[in-house]
């Protein structure tokens, strides 16, 4: 049986090598390298301003990089190829705000090639039924986040990158979203940019710790504990404090 590790070794995952990015001569990403293993949920963690969102936008191609390679199977991916491979859902956006939620979701469903049943299931799981006839602009922050999550989960692309997917949710809602993400991980990978470490620990298989644009550590929680010389029972918060 092919494991995640063997897929990693076979180079099936998305490989990011030596990514560098400066904004106004200030380095925001410095030699960032890592691999996303197929089927895993990777947590991109780091303090505010660490460069998490910038990294995701660079991988998507929404920001140009100064240097670095994004590849799969040893081949550098063009912008058009990345469009087929990954979907990035930015944080804090309000797309088509004056349109009814139903209209926006229906548009996204058709654009992503998802079925009406897919959308119905998402609406049910995210408890959006009562909001469908309201414009996105009129929704509370929590409901807006649910709509954004639905927009992302309608995508069929093999790699989903979600920026702060749990922001705006209470504990119960966060747990429900985690369940949903676990269900939707089948057949694809996810990169979740999360600043709430307790939530990251609950859902992510591996972590990439980013600070000031540099990768400080990468691996499973156990591997990070070893890197930080902490006991295997240490929490992600303890690891984070030890490493940063």
């Amino acid at each position, binding site marked *: 049986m092919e494991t995640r590790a063997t897929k990693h070794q076979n180079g099936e995952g998305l490989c990011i090598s030596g990514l560098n990015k400066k904004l106004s001569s200030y380095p925001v990403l410095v030699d960032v390298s890592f691999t996303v293993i197929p089927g895993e949920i990777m947590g991109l963690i780091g303090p505010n301003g660490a460069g998490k969102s910038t990294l995701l936008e660079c991988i998507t191609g929404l920001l140009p990089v100064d240097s670095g390679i994004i590849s799969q199977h040893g081949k550098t991916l063009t912008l058009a190829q990345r469009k087929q491979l990954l979907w990035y859902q930015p944080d804090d956006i309000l797309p088509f705000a*004056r349109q009814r939620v139903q209209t926006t979701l229906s548009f996204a469903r058709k654009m992503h090639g998802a079925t009406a049943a897919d959308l119905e299931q998402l609406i049910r799981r995210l408890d959006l039924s009562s909001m469908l006839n309201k414009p996105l602009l009129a929704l509370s922050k929590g409901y807006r986040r649910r709509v954004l999550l639905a927009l992302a*989960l309608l995508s069929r692309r093999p790699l989903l990158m979600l920026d702060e997917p749990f922001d705006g949710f209470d504990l119960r809602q966060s747990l429900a979203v985690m369940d949903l993400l676990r269900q939707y991980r089948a057949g694809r990978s996810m990169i979740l940019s999360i600043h709430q470490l307790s939530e990251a620990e609950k859902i992510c298989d591996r972590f990439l710790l980013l600070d000031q644009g540099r990768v400080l550590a990468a691996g499973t929680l156990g591997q990070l504990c070893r890197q930080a010389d902490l006991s295997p029972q240490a929490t992600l918060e303890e690891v984070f404090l030890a490493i940063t």
Partner: protein
Amino acid sequence: MPSPETPPAYRPAPLLLVQEIRSLLAAPALWIMLIILSLLVGYSFIQAVELFSQASRTALSFPELAAGMNPLDGIFVPTFGAYYLSETLLLPFVAIRLIGLDKQSGALKLLLQFPLSPLSLCGLKITAMGLVWLLSLLPAAMALGFWHNLGGHIYPPEIAVLLTGHGLYSFTVIAVAMFAATISDSLPTAAMFCLALTLGSWVLDFATSGQGGMLATLGSLSLTGMLRQFENGLLSTAAIASFLCISLFFFLLTAIWLHPGRHLLFKLGYSLLVLVLLSSALAGAALVPGYVDVTENRRHSFNPADTRALHQLDKPLIITVHLNPQDSRLLDLEHDVLAKLRRTVPGLKVRYLQQKSTGLFGAADDDNYGLIEYAYGGRHEQSYSNSQEEILQIIYKLAGLRVVPDPVQSYRGYPLVADATASRWWFYGILPLLFCGAGLFGWKGKW
């Protein structure tokens, strides 16, 4: 749940086009523009009919004056003047939203991830805007309907050219607004950029109006000046090419600069390429000018026999004008003769010898002031006349031609005494209420 393995079966372009139209219809700015446009068109139309009627009363008493009663100048150009105002001052605020709002809301980051190139995305956006722009023609269509019902005369080619001019002007304004929104950080900055260009063009036209010579030529190159050619019923390939090149330039720049993931050098390089290609196209169009006078009274054309004779002039015809740009005689000469000669004589060269003095009656100390010199094939003539008939006779004499004018039916004009005040209920009441209702519908997200 969506399976990553299942191939998507959808056509993104029509979906996105519908989405863009929905976004525009949900924009209050569009409906506010339409309400203002309805009021402006109504006011312009009712005023134009009133003035036309006053002039027609005199023309009906003195039939020789009737030839001046032309509905294009009297009714349609003033009515469409409301469109010029709307296209210059209001349309940019609607068009800026096409890109600006997507940038501001973050929707652009999603749209750029769909399987569409930035060029296709921009193309769909401008198509959506074009379709929505057709809505703005509703007040004009109503004005035409009212005029027809009042018994007014409509000459379709003149209306078609007028609409073409406004369509091209709007296309240019929309493309400029899209580019402004693309390169600006905020909607107000984009609006300032766009208004600077449209109002700058108006100022250039205004500053050069009433001027002759090179200043008049400069003014005719402004967007407003080019639109005026269409308003005058003159279909010019140079004006069409200019509008298309300017709008395509800004449209392609928008497509190049839209994607934030492209490197600056890539954007600069392609922008330069577009500039070179479109400048070449524009220069090419200027080298082979073509004109069609679509006016019913053929105001931009000589008699067909004169046109044929002037086309045959195979040597350079040099006309030297000793008049100051502000002199009304030069304005008449430009409008009545030189403009027509430029469109007809292949080798025409006009030189303006500007005088130092600009006194009320010209330069008293210069004996040549007011003189117009003609040189053709080594022969030379001069005259103080700016009459078309006399000037043509001088040219024919220099060229050794004898021209007998073709018999043409004289334009008799269409004087009409009518009262359009009943239409105010539509323009000031029903139409704005309809637009207001549609705007509220969109505001509630019902589109």
